[in-house]
């Protein structure tokens, strides 16, 4: 063994880690909220009969899915600044993550929409509901319910991916780890700790989504089975 582990120096800095974990969660939540909305609209847009809108949504999804998140983050952060828009690292990081997860959410939501039987929509039309009302009351929730496990996992992946925002000075968990390890040179201890922290955060996020699912889908709560 080439090294002896000593966690005390690293653990001493726990308030830093706590701050980092909180920011990681905040980043993830912001990105999930905004990206979830972007993705949902984009999924609707891709099915639009307006070819411009459909093309725009498809282009967005393909561009994002085929380039690394890191590059996207750089372009948003420095790109905005050089045309005169200065935002805090946090807002830019959250925005870049939202744009990223939006593309993935769009793909998942599209699958959800496609899984709604056409008969459901006809039944709603027959009841004189408007398009918006149909999306809102009849399509959206069942579609989300169908892809909820995929969405949950995608959002957990996003939380893990938020580690690259350390590059543009967001003080999230990985940034803290990098700082602590170069301060103390206790690299193993730091990264082991951070790995555990991420695993814990994933569990927390999954639990939160489970609870949210219980609230969103009362039918599932009562009958237990997915649709």
């Amino acid at each position, binding site marked *: 063994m*080439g090294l002896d582990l000593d966690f005390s120096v690293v653990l001493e800095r726990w308030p830093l880690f706590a701050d980092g974990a909180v920011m990681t969660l905040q980043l993830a939540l912001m990105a999930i909220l905004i990206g979830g909305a972007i993705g949902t609209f984009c999924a609707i847009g891709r099915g639009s009969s307006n070819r411009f809108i459909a093309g725009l949504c498809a282009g967005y999804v393909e561009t994002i899915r085929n*380039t690394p998140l890191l590059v996207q983050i750089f372009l948003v952060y420095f790109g905005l600044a050089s045309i005169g828009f200065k935002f805090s690292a946090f807002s830019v990081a959250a925005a870049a993550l939202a744009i990223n997860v939006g593309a993935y959410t769009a793909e998942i939501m599209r699958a959800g929409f496609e899984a709604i039987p056409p008969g459901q929509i006809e039944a709603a039309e027959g009841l004189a509901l408007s398009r918006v009302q149909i999306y809102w009351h009849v399509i959206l929730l069942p579609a989300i319910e169908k892809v909820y496990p995929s969405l949950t*996992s995608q959002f957990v992946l996003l939380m893990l991916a938020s580690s690259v925002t350390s590059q543009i000075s967001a003080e999230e968990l990985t940034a803290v780890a990098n700082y602590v390890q170069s301060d103390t040179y206790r690299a193993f201890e730091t990264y082991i700790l951070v790995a555990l922290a991420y*695993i814990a955060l994933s569990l927390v996020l999954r639990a939160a989504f489970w609870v949210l699912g219980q609230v969103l889908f009362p039918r599932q709560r009562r009958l237990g089975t997915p649709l």
Partner: protein
Amino acid sequence: MGGTLNANHLLFLGQGALWTIGLSAIALIGGGLVGFLIALARVSPRKAVRLLSGAYVQLVQGTPLLVIMFLGYFGLSALGLRITPLWAAGASLTIYVGAYFGEIWRGCIQAVPRPQWEAAEGLGLSRTQRMLKVILPQAMRIATPPTVGFMVQIIKNTSLASVVGFVELARSGQIINNSLFEPFLIYAIIALIYFALCFPISLLSRRLERRMGVGRAKLMPA
């Protein structure tokens, strides 16, 4: 320091891109093997095997690849294993990709309709025969589109091999940028190269999906 982008730089980026492709191939093969075993273990009749493989997947999927790379490279040598960066990056990617493939393929195996399992059972086929002759051939068809789709993520994720000293595409861009200070130009070029590598594969996976009529959502690391 300074200077402008020249042919040498582009060559250097090209070299990086080759490493990216090489690492992706290693990850695909290694991860494919591990993933196959994990997928089988996840549907094993033995509960302990299912639980263990499930825990592996949970653990790996809960940890950023960056951290896995780091622990894989230095952690393994700290345990006394002398491994080169290539092996370390290969091992980490294998561990990581294996978990995702395992999950994807487990889904595909379970997507083979229940009655097919029963029909095979009713004919008196042994478990291994059922798997090999009835279930896997069908699961393989279902698995092709998501597997091809996941390759895009593998390519993008090899960029993290830079922490173990690999100068692949992203890192070679970073190194050039650090001497030229031209982030937009350099990152745009890198983005383009990644796009050129990934987009054809995305297209292929979409085509396969349409042909097989599986409109499944892709679940993938960003």
